[in-house]
């Protein structure tokens, strides 16, 4: 077991420092790049916070859908193969729900401000 502060706490501290102390000092193209850097750290923080739970739920759905066991990567590869072969499609019970749940979890980490995501989130609300 590693010591604390946790990776989330450390990443947040760096992002806050860049956002609050460095942003006012920088201009032009470098300030655009700084914004990208802060966005990356915020994304990493969201992933560290959410990934464990969302991966576990994804694996559970994939096991039920595919009737097999494996890591989240292996199960995704297997599902991709079955869709490519036409063995599984949108008429397969649970597929649409699984893809929607998985995609919503990805957007929650990647781009929580994306308009399509916010619209779909409102539907669930």
């Amino acid at each position, binding site marked *: 077991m590693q010591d604390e502060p946790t990776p989330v706490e450390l990443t947040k501290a760096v992002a806050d420092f860049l956002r609050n102390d460095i942003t006012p000092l920088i201009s032009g193209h470098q300030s655009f790049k700084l914004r990208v850097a802060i966005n990356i750290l915020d994304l990493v923080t969201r992933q560290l916070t959410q990934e464990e739970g969302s991966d576990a739920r994804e694996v559970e759905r994939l096991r039920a859908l595919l009737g097999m066991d494996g890591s989240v990567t292996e199960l995704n590869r297997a*599902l991709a193969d079955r869709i490519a072969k036409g063995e599984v*499609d949108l008429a397969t019970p649970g597929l649409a729900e699984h893809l929607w749940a998985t995609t919503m979890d990805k957007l929650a980490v990647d781009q929580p401000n994306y308009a399509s995501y916010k619209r779909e989130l409102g539907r669930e609300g």
Partner: protein
Amino acid sequence: MIEAELSRSVQRWCPGATGVTGAAKLSGGASQETWRFDITHPDGPIGAILRRSPKGYGAAPTRAAGLAAEAQLMQLAFEAGVPSPRVMHVLSAEDDLGTGFIMQRVEGETIARKILRDEEFAAARPLLARQIGGILAGLHRLPQDKLPELRSRGATQEISEFDRDYRSLNWPKPVFELALRWLRDHDPGPSVETTLVHGDFRNGNLIIGPDGVRAVLDWELAHLGDPMEDLGWVCVNSWRFGEIDKPVGGFGTRDELFAGYEAAGRKVDPARVKFWEVMGTLRWGIMCGGMMQRFRESPDHSMERAMIGRRASETEIDLLRLLSPRGS
């Protein structure tokens, strides 16, 4: 620097020109650059743009038409009344500037978010979807016997090409697989008519003023194919920049786009347009994957490229909204 070469160049082909000022690079990757500058002239300065591949970067990537073809297409569009900058000069060896061309600078805005938000464009916005329909009709009618040599791409070939690009990423994505299946199942086959296709006609590649579209830019993906491809691509959600209920670039409805196209005397096939919108959404998603791959493989560790890789999920949610919409 580049001003010395530009000065010598303009004095050869622009009567009365005495030199250039204010050369500034607007954008540039390794193989292609865009510069702005002013030609000094007794009647007043002439705004100009240089598009070039620097010396040693002659070869175009496989999908690109090449700068010489781009210049020819823009000139042809200009002559046909399609909003386009006038091409002033195609570079030759004696210009010593690489390969490319110089065109007249068209004033206006290209940044999509500004066009969608700024007050300056408020009056133009509701007219743009219909206007874009008319412009695309004009573009699809450009005389085929005058076109430069272009690659030819139909729906079936494009599906195979994207399938191959996707598999080469080794990036298993169930939603992309589903989209590829859907595209195969809905492949409309060869179009009744083959025309010039712009290939990247979208919000972001148009110069817009308070009066509407002033110029169509970025012709590098031009090819021969199904004209409905351009109508589908302009509707891809990624080019609506948040205005998701206005499919045509965030400006307006498909009906307005189609009405503008048909008023200009051309026919719309809405099923084909939908096919190309799905294709276009997947295309941008696979391009995001390509950015991820380039981020990993190239030594410059570009943060922007890394983050574009993380935008593939945006196209996944948009594909699901197209192929498996949830209740309203």
